[in-house]
């Protein structure tokens, strides 16, 4: 442990303060704002489904498959008990809940009212049209598991 505080002389205090303020200035205000907004979730009783795969971030895939597959965007969201796979097709957003099971899917646009649909027996669903702007997906399985994705923008 470094001796940072005991017997700080003026120069040391000033240098430490400078470093502390610099670390704060480095953070963009929008990053802090997004953090504050996260509190809206505190009374939502659902697991967070995190983005664990995004094909647009997979440069290796793009290089190897070129044009024929590069236009298909695939996303995977994972929570403790569920995985939600999404694939952007031409006019709809196709999805599946894994493990395969029936569920209710709610699409919650940031700026609009939510819509709801039921998956088929094996958890497949299709959202039409593809949501414009930011939205998130709330999945409620027949077994009673709730999962909510982070904000998605396609």
């Amino acid at each position, binding site marked *: 442990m470094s001796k940072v*505080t005991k017997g700080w002389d003026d120069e040391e205090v000033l240098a430490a*303060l400078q470093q502390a*303020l610099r670390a704060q200035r480095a953070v963009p205000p929008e990053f*802090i704002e997004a953090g504050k907004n*996260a509190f809206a979730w*505190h*009374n939502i009783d659902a697991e*967070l489904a995190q*983005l664990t795969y995004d094909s647009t971030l997979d440069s290796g895939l793009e290089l190897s498959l070129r044009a024929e597959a590069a236009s298909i965007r695939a996303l995977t969201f994972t929570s403790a008990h569920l995985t939600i796979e999404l694939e952007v097709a031409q006019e709809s957003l196709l999805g599946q809940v894994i493990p395969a099971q029936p569920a209710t899917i709610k699409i919650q646009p940031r700026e609009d009212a939510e819509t709801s649909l039921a998956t088929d027996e094996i958890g497949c669903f299709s959202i039409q049209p593809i949501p414009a702007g930011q939205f998130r997906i709330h999945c409620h399985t027949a077994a009673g598991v709730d999962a909510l994705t982070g904000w998605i923008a396609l």
Partner: protein
Amino acid sequence: MRDDPSVIALVARVGDGDQEAWDELVERYAPLVWSICVRYGLSRQDIDDVGQSVWLLLVEQIGKLREPAALPGWLVTTTRRECLRVLRAGRRYDHEGLPPDDQLPPDPSATMIEQEVIVAERNAALRAAFAELPQPCRELLSMLMSDPSPAYAEISARLGMAVGSIGPTRARCLERLRRSPHLAAVIGDQTGEDDIEVKEPRGEQGD
């Protein structure tokens, strides 16, 4: 590390659903989360993704934190894990033929995490102490810290302060900063160090 009473109070208020306390907590620790992401070399988009996950996980789990004072350590560990997650999310197909783990920065030791927490807490305490200084003190210190630091003559002209009183005022302001209750927890960290090591022997750190 001695518990910072202000963090404990904040965590308790957040547990009661207090948005203002949450905002304060985010302001306090955003620089820590940000700096870890930057060190992992993440893009801005990935940093936003990590940030979103870390704060959402914190919202979800803050009620379950056994020790509110353990929050900064939790943040370091969680942010690191999230950085690794977004790095892996972009590498499901790895055409280099290398296991993704080999391309990732090595796991920091428990000591490094501890050090990161200490610096973050010290920075947060300094910022909180600075924010509570009287306005003239903040102005003077800000000028003294600007780069390049201006000559005393310029400071004198801008702040309407006699050149001869800049030195003594600077000393008074810094003394005031040092005596801030916010810094007491950080300073206590040093004086109580030996006691803490006796109470919590090493050996539980997994590395």
